């Protein structure tokens, strides 16, 4: 299913001394299963606990200890597989990946090598300023995380924290279907949206709960595939883009100066913005995979899979389609509003039973702007979706104008509270009393006789009087009413 034939958009080509180059990118994303206990033990998985406080005898590799599969984690892997439109393998098996390291207490990692729980699937991504791209999923398998080695607490010692040891990870392997840094980050972002919507992973990249190994190679557009390098453990969308750009440039320079690319594993240094060699292919471990004899193969019932399928939540793509249909918003807006479960839920609450387009503008404009400025996440928004909806109601029933609404919103954002409370306490209610408006209009006309004559000849100057009246009313006069009365009085 590898779409080697697909050639990148010309805008994504990188130019070198010898002409243009195309990037071929595939990703292995490690997503930590949102589970309270580990893949093969009952130990807790809470983030940030004191070192070595969440370690069972199994996780510490004590003699005679045996792994027992956590069914919840299996269910999450199946859910995720279904969310990736992928084949669920009713038969799968755990293998041991053998190597020595201080943070690997058993001397092997339990993973799924030959028979993963999830097979091929695909997702559609929408990179910014490009057409949608379909990215193939090669497989998803379950495996244990290792512990953490801490090298910087002492000049001579390495400290080991086994809290992560045994934590369940889903490794999601893409096909090499991406052709630009933007496509790669859009893919990870999409994956993140899917696992968050499913609730199978919290997608928190800062905590390392979702991280990517990036495989990059370059070729002449449409030409022979090059040798790839793998960049390990990149943990933000920006770093993914930066690492790919740096790595592609590095490979192009080597090839163009007559060198060859060595297949190797590299690390991304986010401070220096460069990748550097970690180990070459020759140094690669022989992991001596073999089926873990402590565990039986996983044999799932089709009914188990069907049960999970029947209870899947709405996924970002489906929600996007529904938002377009239900709220009449453009595809782009719908994409932004459904990229994330929290955003989608917020928007849906604010827009329900209201003008969807106006709601979208408010969420993506005022709200996102204010949150960005404050460096806040939507979860921490001082304006709840319900309260934003309340504000939209007051605009709709003309209690306030759109302009006043912005003022009300600012106050809501600063101090919380409902739009009604703020309109009331600040006296911002729109003046719709025609008598009062007419008096204000007359006052403005009387005060500016010269302008009246000019306006009669050039109706474009009407705006001057609208401004005068709005000023006099403190912005509360209904602008449509002001316009209408003005036109009547000026005989326009």
């Amino acid at each position, binding site marked *: 299913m590898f779409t080697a034939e697909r050639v990148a958009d010309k805008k994504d080509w990188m130019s070198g001394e010898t002409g243009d180059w195309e990037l071929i990118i595939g990703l292995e994303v490690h997503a930590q299963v949102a589970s309270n206990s580990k893949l093969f033990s009952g130990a807790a998985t809470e983030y940030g606990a004191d070192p070595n406080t969440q370690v069972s*005898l199994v996780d*510490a*590799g*004590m*003699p*005679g*200890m*045996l*792994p*027992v*599969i956590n069914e919840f984690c299996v269910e999450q892997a199946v859910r995720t597989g279904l969310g990736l439109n992928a084949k669920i393998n009713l038969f799968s098996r755990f293998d*041991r990946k*053998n190597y*020595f390291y*201080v943070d690997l*207490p*058993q*001397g*092997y990692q339990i993973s799924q090598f030959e028979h993963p729980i999830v097979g091929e699937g695909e997702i559609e991504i929408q990179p910014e300023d490009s057409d949608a791209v379909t990215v193939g999923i090669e497989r998803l398998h379950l495996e244990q995380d290792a512990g953490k080695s801490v090298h910087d607490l002492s000049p001579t010692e*390495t400290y*080991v924290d086994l809290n992560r040891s045994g934590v369940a990870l889903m490794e999601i392997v893409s096909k090499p279907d991406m052709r630009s840094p933007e496509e790669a980050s859009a893919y990870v972002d999409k994956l993140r949206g899917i696992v968050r919507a499913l609730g199978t992973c919290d997608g928190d990249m800062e905590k390392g709960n979702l991280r990517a190994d990036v495989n990059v190679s370059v070729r002449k557009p449409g030409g022979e595939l090059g040798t790839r390098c793998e960049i390990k453990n990149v943990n933000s969308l920006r770093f993914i883009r930066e690492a790919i750009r740096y790595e592609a440039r590095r490979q192009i320079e080597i090839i163009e100066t007559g060198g060859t690319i060595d297949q190797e594993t590299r690390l991304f240094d986010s401070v220096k913005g460069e990748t550097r060699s970690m180990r070459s292919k020759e140094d690669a471990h*022989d992991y*001596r*995979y*073999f089926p873990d*004899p*402590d*565990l*039986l193969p996983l044999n799932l019932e089709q009914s188990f899979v069907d049960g999970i399928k029947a209870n899947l939540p709405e996924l970002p793509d489906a929600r996007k389609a529904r938002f377009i249909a239900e709220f009449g918003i453009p595809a782009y807006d719908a994409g932004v509003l459904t990229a994330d479960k929290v955003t989608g839920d917020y928007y849906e609450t604010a827009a329900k039973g209201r003008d969807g387009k106006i709601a979208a503008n408010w969420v993506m404009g005022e709200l996102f702007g204010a949150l960005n400025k404050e460096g806040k996440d939507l979860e921490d928004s001082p304006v709840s979706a319900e309260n934003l909806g309340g504000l939209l109601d007051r605009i709709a029933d003309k209690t306030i104008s759109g302009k006043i609404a912005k003022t009300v919103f600012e106050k809501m954002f600063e101090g919380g509270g409902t739009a009604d409370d703020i309109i009331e306490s600040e006296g911002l209610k729109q003046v719709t009393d025609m008598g009062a408006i007419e008096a204000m209009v007359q006052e403005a006309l009387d005060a500016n006789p010269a302008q009246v004559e000019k306006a009669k000849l050039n109706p474009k100057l009407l705006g001057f009087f609208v401004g005068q009246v709005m000023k006099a009313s403190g912005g509360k006069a209904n602008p449509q009413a002001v316009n209408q009365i003005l036109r009547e009085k000026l005989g326009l």
Partner: protein
Amino acid sequence: MSDLTQLTLESALGGMAAGDFTSEEITIAHIDACMEAADLNAFITNTFELAIDQAKASDARRAKGAVGKLEGAPLGVKDLFCTEGVKTTAASQILGDFKPPYESSVTTNMKADGMVMLGKLNLDEFAMGSSNETSSYGNVVNPWKKNEELVPGGSSGGSAAAVAADICLGATATDTGGSIRQPASFTGTVGIKPTYGRCSRFGIVAFASSLDQAGPIAKTVKDSAILLDSMAGYDPKDSTSLNVDNGDWIASCEKSIKGMRIGIPKEYTVDGMPAEIQSLWDQGVEWMKDAGAEIVPVSLPHTKYALPAYYIVAPAEASSNLARYDGMRYGARVDGENLNDTYERTRAAGFGPEVQRRIMIGTYVLSAGYYDAYYLRAQKVRTRIAEDFKNAWESCDALLTPTCPSAPFAIGRKVNDPITMYLNDIFTVTANLAGLPGISVPAALDKNGLPLGLQIIGKALDEDTVFAAAGALEKAANFTAKPEKWWT
């Protein structure tokens, strides 16, 4: 009072129930016997003080009417079972003074049933061996002796020697390729390896996970049934544990075998097998016939591949299972220049030559480029061997074979010849590869006056038939010989 150490487990339990003696009395009698038998080197660690406390507690429970399946019986535990707060070594230096903060499920069951633990019994290092000579705590000496000191078999040599010498009423053991049955045969004791999955492996130091299975070594077939009934049972902490009930094994030991079809696998007649063993086997056939069984010749055509397959699968799993002994979290460590150097020094010092050999064989057969030719083929052989048995069960209910191809041999005779040593397992590994129950019953003495055993192999989960056939065999053989007590 007669010598309480001469009792069987069954009669000891009966004696305590009748109030003839207390657990404390029979425990002290066994502790005295253990101390006299120091030359056998059967124990790595004794827990005599703990045993007396447990015996007193058992007597107190009995006074209140609470009586478990093993109430008050002084027993030994192979030092491969983790025992909470009691040093557990696997007979290896690499575990150092490791004291587990947990208890194996099998010994947990036995403690709950009233076991009194006399100590931790010697074995081949990590259960790798057939003579108990690979123990880093010194070899065990067989209580049976002719001119020279003999090996007790292995790997459960300490368990077998201790039971044969009457220094404990019974003992736990484990069997990966014959480690219960071969030492039982070498010491004139009964040893049963149950169906794979009957006894939980939780808390037993792993050798080869897909083959390891715990079982008892005992003085009689019925004693072995009493012990197994306590040891076995479903354990959710072991994913390969079978969620099935125990059979009525104790009663099965006395069941008639009239009409039972006993298969005689022709492939178990091997070149170079002593004539005495062949004739004992023939004798066994006659005994079974006399007891009313029907004798059926059967064929297990892949038998000759069993031993090579075993010596690929077992080391492969062992090489991975033993990776955790890296000197980082527990056990012994030899510091080096850097991490790899520390690993190398620790493991070079901690593991004996046989363990190192098997780790290297196992690492080799799992390596890229060799995996298909060795490990994968061995697994295919394993499937074929299981099919052989399945086909045999079409025409018979259990198999009768010799337990091993020789009588106990002299200490030092084979230790430098691994291949000859490995041949000891030729009749026992098939049951491990196929996960079937097998029992060794002492049947006769050879011309040198040394014990020889016969083996019954049964269908998976059909221990009832195995015990019935073994009971009949025991009755017919009427093996009453005891080793001459030379060790005091």
